[in-house]
């Protein structure tokens, strides 16, 4: 974690990603205010029948939110996560486009492929953002880095279209590279050498720093810290006292110091998890358990896909009051089956669910403990044992899972499910997990 380790980091960020991809596909949307609805096309009434979207919006889109607004819509005040009805109120000309995750997933694969073929290491940061270590690929200097960044930008334009533009930032660490890419939009290329870091960072606002959100900004404001320059003047002990360990991050961020290591997703992951916020709160034990099983099956599939098994399981529950609880447990024998993950996770969750139960009927819970969000993750990962299990029932289970994995590899997550999880339906989300099959 230093600004002078010699590494060169590139950050690539698509500009108004989903909206740009739609404008790339349909030239009549270019230059117009458009908003991509969070609800995908599967939510259109009657599926893929003849449906008119704009002019007469299907009822369901009135309850949707805007996931991405085009630059033209942003100028009218439309923001990400704004309710569709609210966006239409402030921008009556807004064209609502139902999200198309398949399209976006493919563009994401294309730009990651470009980065992987040009860079030393790649870390996908989100659907439309990635970091890359280009220290070796650039020849170790900032002229080579600039030329490489320009080549990457041209390749993205060739493969993803001229409208789906990217902004690229280059710097000595991830913090500076991200600040750089966001400093010039759209279609920017900003290179910050180690010598220029201090001056560049001082010119940014607090909100520009990834990790300083509105709440933290307001807490800093209450301390009289309203800019990077004033943050830099605050002594480390004061920041540590006020923000605990996060104070160190603030201290370093104000000096342009940030991490320069990448978590390359081609390398073995440290943990794998899946969580889901339900469309309604779950207030029945059986519902919670079957949804946990459905999530665990997804985690287990991702584990096996990477040839791994887990020795530690963590679960997370957010109640309808927005408070949350999490727990974890280490296990002796590594697990790679969703059913077994569920058994361990459920043994941790169940006492919590029952601890506040008012109604003692089996399967009933109090409203205070209705579940809004559920998550399960695994860590302490080891290589999956390829040896044939000794017991016949274990052999049968392993063979069944391997057969199911072939189905998942071909058709994606959710292509099969257990009978007991048939009532769980994870809705398509624009940036969702439905399109992870092999092409």
């Amino acid at each position, binding site marked *: 974690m230093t600004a002078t380790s010699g590494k060169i980091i590139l950050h690539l960020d698509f500009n108004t990603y989903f909206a740009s991809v739609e404008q790339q596909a349909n030239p009549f949307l270019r230059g117009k205010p458009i908003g991509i609805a969070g609800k995908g096309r599967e939510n259109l009434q009657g599926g893929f029948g*003849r449906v008119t979207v704009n002019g007469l919006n299907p009822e369901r889109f009135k309850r949707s939110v805007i996931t991405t607004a085009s630059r033209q819509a942003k100028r009218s005040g439309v923001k990400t996560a704004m309710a569709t009805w609210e966006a239409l109120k402030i921008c009556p000309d807004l064209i609502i486009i139902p999200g198309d995750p398949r399209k976006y997933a493919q563009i994401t694969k294309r730009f990651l492929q470009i980065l992987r073929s040009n860079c030393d290491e790649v870390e996908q940061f989100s659907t439309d953002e990635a970091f890359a270590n280009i220290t070796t690929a650039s020849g170790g200097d900032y002229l080579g880095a600039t030329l490489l960044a320009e080549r990457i930008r041209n390749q993205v334009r060739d493969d993803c279209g001229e409208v789906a533009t990217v902004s690229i930032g280059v710097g000595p660490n991830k913090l500076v590279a991200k600040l750089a890419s966001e400093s010039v939009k759209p279609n920017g290329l900003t290179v910050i050498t180690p010598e220029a870091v201090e001056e560049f960072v001082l010119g940014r606002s607090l909100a520009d720093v990834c990790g300083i959100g509105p709440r933290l900004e307001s807490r800093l404001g209450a301390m009289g810290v309203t800019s990077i320059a004033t943050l830099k003047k605050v002594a480390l002990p004061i920041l540590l006292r006020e923000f605990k360990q996060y104070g160190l991050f603030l201290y370093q961020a104000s000096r342009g110091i940030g991490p320069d290591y990448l978590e390359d997703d081609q390398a073995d992951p440290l943990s794998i998890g899946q969580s889901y916020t339900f469309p309604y709160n779950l207030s029945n034990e059986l519902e919670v358990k079957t949804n946990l099983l459905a999530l665990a099956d997804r985690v287990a599939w991702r584990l096996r896909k990477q040839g791994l098994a887990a020795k530690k399981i963590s679960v997370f529950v957010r109640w309808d009051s927005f408070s949350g609880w999490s727990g974890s447990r280490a296990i002796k024998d590594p697990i790679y089956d969703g059913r077994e993950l569920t058994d361990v996770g459920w043994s941790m969750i169940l006492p919590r669910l029952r601890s506040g139960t008012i109604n003692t009927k089996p399967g009933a819970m109090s409203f205070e403990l209705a579940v809004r969000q559920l998550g399960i993750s695994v860590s302490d990962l080891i290589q999956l044992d390829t040896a044939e299990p000794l017991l016949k029932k274990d052999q049968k289970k392993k063979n069944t899972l391997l057969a199911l994995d072939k189905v998942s590899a071909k058709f994606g997550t959710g292509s099969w499910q257990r009978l007991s999880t048939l009532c769980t339906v994870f809705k398509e989300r624009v940036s969702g997990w439905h399109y992870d099959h092999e092409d």
Partner: protein
Amino acid sequence: MQHQYLDEPVDVTVLFSGRRVRPIKVIWGRTVFVVDKLNLVHSAREGLDKVFFFSVSSRDSFMQLRLNCKNLEWRLIESFVP
């Protein structure tokens, strides 16, 4: 402006160039749509079948076409007339 999501069979004339397919004319009922530009191609799996989506436009409208690689059926799935 008329923006519709559909699922209707269409006849498509294509150009083959190496491993690439480029739609040049779409016949939808009595309407003949001459493709001026191929804007984006993406693919996906639908059940057992691999499908390709072609986002194409003419001077006055946009269409998204779906080609099923298994039965070579073309369908019009989106139409946009500004």
